[in-house]
């Protein structure tokens, strides 16, 4: 079976991640319950004619994918696969508002056309003139991991050589309001917000786009090998450890072989016990990493997590700002990521040093 390597990455996030070295300039914000993106200069990546209809999610996806493509030096893809839990929320809301406000009259098509979940993948294909396989996964917090599983299958079993994979999420005005009403986003009265040791429900929300070039051959820019990915719709807190051990066993590993774990802590007191339980038992001697205090929570935040983990392997170093505990390892060879959202959509992702 062929292997799957991460050969390029690109990331647009609440941190300056487009034109800086890995997490060299970070901002920790504990007063906003929705984190704003550090916006790239779109004109460097997209012509004004092409950009004029694009919502921010599409633009961010194009920038992040362009960075990944540039780094990997690839021209042709056998597949473009995206994940997005909420899809193109901005254009969906725009069309829906126009529809409701004008009582179904005088509607124009542009926002409807761009409201479908596969808009980002389609626009990237259009830009690259890539007629290859093009899929979009839309399953909450495993949207991105579903795309990864598909990509791995293509590379390992189905003759693909290079695949572009990404996770994109954009927040829209009313959707954010709804998530505040539902309690998914932390209340303003709960400020200051923290991700570790939080005692309040809900999360600090955000958006972002993270892309990866995956390939079946290793090259100079290779970050790591994407060894395995698994998703589960539901796991009870007491089932996670056993599932995790089985997942590692499938890869001929045990917990002791892990040099770091990247946990999806998001500061929701009702669900972070999924992570703390593992952190205090199975992983109590393993270096632990968290990242959602930097990226915020959103359906494809775990793609930011994979970007972090890939950089840790490449640089063989865990920056202080993302450490949960103070453990270090002389070498970072195997890193496991574990993520879930509100007790659903669990994922394990394993990457290894080449």
């Amino acid at each position, binding site marked *: 079976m062929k292997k799957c390597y991460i050969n390029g990455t690109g990331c647009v996030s609440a941190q300056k991640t487009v034109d800086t070295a890995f997490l060299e300039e970070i901002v920790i914000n504990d007063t906003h319950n929705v984190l704003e993106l550090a916006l790239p200069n779109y004109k460097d990546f997209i012509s*004004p004619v092409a950009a*004029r*209809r694009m919502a921010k999610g599409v633009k961010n996806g194009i920038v992040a994918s362009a960075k990944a493509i540039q780094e990997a030096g690839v021209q042709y893809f056998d597949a473009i696969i995206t994940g997005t839990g909420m899809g193109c929320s901005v254009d969906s809301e725009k069309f829906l508002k126009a529809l409701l406000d004008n009582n179904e009259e*005088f*509607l*124009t*098509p*542009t926002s409807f056309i761009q409201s479908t979940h596969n808009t980002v993948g389609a626009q990237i294909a259009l830009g690259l003139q890539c007629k290859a396989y093009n899929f979009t996964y839309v399953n909450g917090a495993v949207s991105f991991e579903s795309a990864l599983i598909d990509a791995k299958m293509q590379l390992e079993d189905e003759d693909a050589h290079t695949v572009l994979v990404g996770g994109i999420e954009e927040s829209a005005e009313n959707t954010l309001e709804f998530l505040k009403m539902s309690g998914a986003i932390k209340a303003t009265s709960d400020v200051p917000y923290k991700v570790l040791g939080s005692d309040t429900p809900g999360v600090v929300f955000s958006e972002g786009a993270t892309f990866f070039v995956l390939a079946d051959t290793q090259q100079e820019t290779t970050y790591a090998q994407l060894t395995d990915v698994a998703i589960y719709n539901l796991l009870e807190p007491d089932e996670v450890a056993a599932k995790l051990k089985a997942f590692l066993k499938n890869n001929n590993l045990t917990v002791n072989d892990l040099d770091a774990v990247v946990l999806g802590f998001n500061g929701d007191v009702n669900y972070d016990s999924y992570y703390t339980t593992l952190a205090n038992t199975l992983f109590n001697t393993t270096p632990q990493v968290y990242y959602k205090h930097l990226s915020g929570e959103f359906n494809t935040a775990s793609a930011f997590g994979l970007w972090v983990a890939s950089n840790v392997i490449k640089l063989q170093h865990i920056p202080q700002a993302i450490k949960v505990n103070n453990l270090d390892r002389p070498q970072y060879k195997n890193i496991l990521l574990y993520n879930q959202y509100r007790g659903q959509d669990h994922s394990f992702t394993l990457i290894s040093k080449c």
Partner: protein
Amino acid sequence: MEALKQELKEKIINILNLEDITPEDVNDNDPLFGDGLGLDSIDALELIVMLDKDYGIKLADPKEGKAIFQSIETMAAYISEKRTK
């Protein structure tokens, strides 16, 4: 007629989000689609709605738009003849 043409240029730039273009950049006889401003079929549908909303002109068939939207000149001529508001 000149006022209508100016109005149309401003509207098109605004509705179609044509950043970096000013009304002065658009000549009355420049083709709007293809090589000229580079508009496409989605823009045509936006313009059809504008005809309806702002001038009270309803087009039943999107194909009719092709002749009308050739240039600012043809649009202005059509609108001034058919407008109901």
